[in-house]
């Protein structure tokens, strides 16, 4: 095997290990499957009865936002799992084997991507039950899910970086919760961000969560001519802006996480 195929083959072995782990930990699997169900029901029925968006049902408006929120939440499993593994000796075992060192993070992020895919499937099914519909071509719908999954994968590397810098599950959880809640709520995921007061509005417009939500809305056709979206560049060009975000996250966080992993395991 050469330098290119080795990380892929080893990464796949690690991903298989993680997939088995997920299957054996009902709490983790339950989180990924049940969280979307709860979120869809909660927001659709509680917020849905109080919030109205012009020209369309709130549930249609909401679902893409929930998709993005679930992606952000599920990607945190990558970081959390790494902090748990850091506490045990398993990385020592891996590092004493003639495997590609990068395979550990590749495998972890790939298996979490598969879990994210499962979560999205459950959530889309829940959405269809409560009245969410795709109004675009199947091709565009596939692009929409593809974009969400790419974001999920890129965001896994972000949580991996944070986890490898903090190294304990407790501190990782604290930071992850503290960052992800404002990130998701100061955005257009659950409400029409153009109604927010000026400083919050600007934050929401440039928040990547808004960009991805807007891109998903466009690709699923969950938009309305009556709903005036922002003029900010990342909202007006949501799909290309999303792709730029994905590229930027990967370019910054893949090498950073890889470096931090080497540091974390060699002390």
């Amino acid at each position, binding site marked *: 095997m050469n330098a290119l195929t080795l990380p892929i083959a*080893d990464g796949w072995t690690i991903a298989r290990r993680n997939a088995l782990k997920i299957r054996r930990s009902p709490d983790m699997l339950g989180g990924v499957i049940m969280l979307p169900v709860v979120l869809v029901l909660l927001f659709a029925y509680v917020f849905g009865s109080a919030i109205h968006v012009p020209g369309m049902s709130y549930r249609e408006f909401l679902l893409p936002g929930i998709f993005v929120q679930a992606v952000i939440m599920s990607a945190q499993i990558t970081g959390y799992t790494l902090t748990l593994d850091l506490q*045990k000796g398993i990385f*020592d075992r*891996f590092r004493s084997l*003639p495997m590609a060192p990068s395979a550990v993070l590749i495998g972890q992020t790939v298996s979490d991507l598969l879990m994210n895919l499962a979560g999205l499937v459950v959530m889309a099914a829940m959405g269809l039950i409560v009245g969410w519909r795709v109004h675009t071509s199947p091709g565009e719908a596939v692009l929409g899910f593809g974009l969400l999954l790419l974001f999920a994968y890129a965001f896994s590397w972000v949580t991996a970086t944070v986890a490898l810098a903090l190294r304990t599950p407790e501190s990782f959880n604290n930071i992850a919760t503290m960052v992800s809640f404002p990130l998701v709520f100061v955005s257009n995921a659950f409400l029409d961000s153009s109604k927010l007061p000026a400083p919050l509005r600007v934050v929401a417009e440039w928040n990547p969560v808004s960009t991805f939500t807007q891109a998903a809305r466009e690709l699923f056709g969950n938009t309305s001519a009556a709903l005036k979206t922002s003029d900010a560049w990342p909202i007006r060009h949501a799909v290309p802006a999303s792709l730029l975000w994905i590229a930027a996250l990967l370019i910054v966080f893949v090498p950073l996480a890889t470096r931090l992993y080497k540091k974390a395991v060699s002390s």
Partner: protein
Amino acid sequence: MSDAITAEGLVKRYGEVTALDGLSFSVPQGTMLALLGPNGAGKTTTVRVLTTLLRPDAGRATVAGCDVVRDARRLRSYIGLSGQYAAVDEHLTGAENLEMVGRLYHLGAKRSRARARELLERFDLTAAADRPVKGYSGGMRRRIDLAGALVADPPVLFLDEPTTGLDPRARAALWDTISELVAGGGTLLLTTQYMDEADRLADQIMVVDHGRAIARGTADELKDQVGGSRIELTVSDAAELETAREAVAWVAVGAMRTVPESLRITVPVTDGPEALRQVLGRLAGTGVRVRDAGLRRPTLDDVYLTLTGHQASGTDEQVREAAR
């Protein structure tokens, strides 16, 4: 015969703490060396350097002809490591753990599966093969971890405190397993805090203290250096200690130790059984009521006291804390 492991002037520092202080040694191919020392002596650091988990600050080392720094990737395909803390995945079954390790040694899917079954049988884990490791006992965990080190049948094996924390029965069982491994002809480096373990498993023992080798030899050679066996005598009353000391002094070949609280005297002797007979004979007419008398092999503490002149000190925790 060529050396499977060589280390020359290895140095590793964690801030203020010097874990390895110019350690040099070699292990000829097909032999077993035990690194014996207390917590914090540098045993685990040595294993971590030799298995490429840690870069030395100075010095050089080779394993199976590969440099630990420059040739790390190739080196890893020649070694098996079983650590102090069982490095297995709790959520995976025993079989899945071994199969994963096989795949990461690039044995291929089929061969990895077959090898896993083979090792499970050899380590008497067939019944537990398809249960998650989480439910294994301490002894079973050590066995599966040890099996993990053997998946690729590596020519050089590192076992870092393989029995620490095990109950006596599990320890004896693991010793049997390791002895069998060793009979196969591979090279083994073992670390331990227990003299009897080093004695039982290794051809040669190297005593390590503060990151330096302070003695090396067979178990018997080392024990002779610390005065062969010891007589331990316990009396019934503190008033009898002085008389007992006089009787014991006749056979002593080293410093006598008295612990008044427990009414006990310990002394190194050469011909153990004969010395004990003499001591008891001398005490017979004195009215001293001997509560307990016996012969005891030197412990690690004795070796330390004699070889280093100080009690075993410093803990792994201190070294590890300093490493953070």
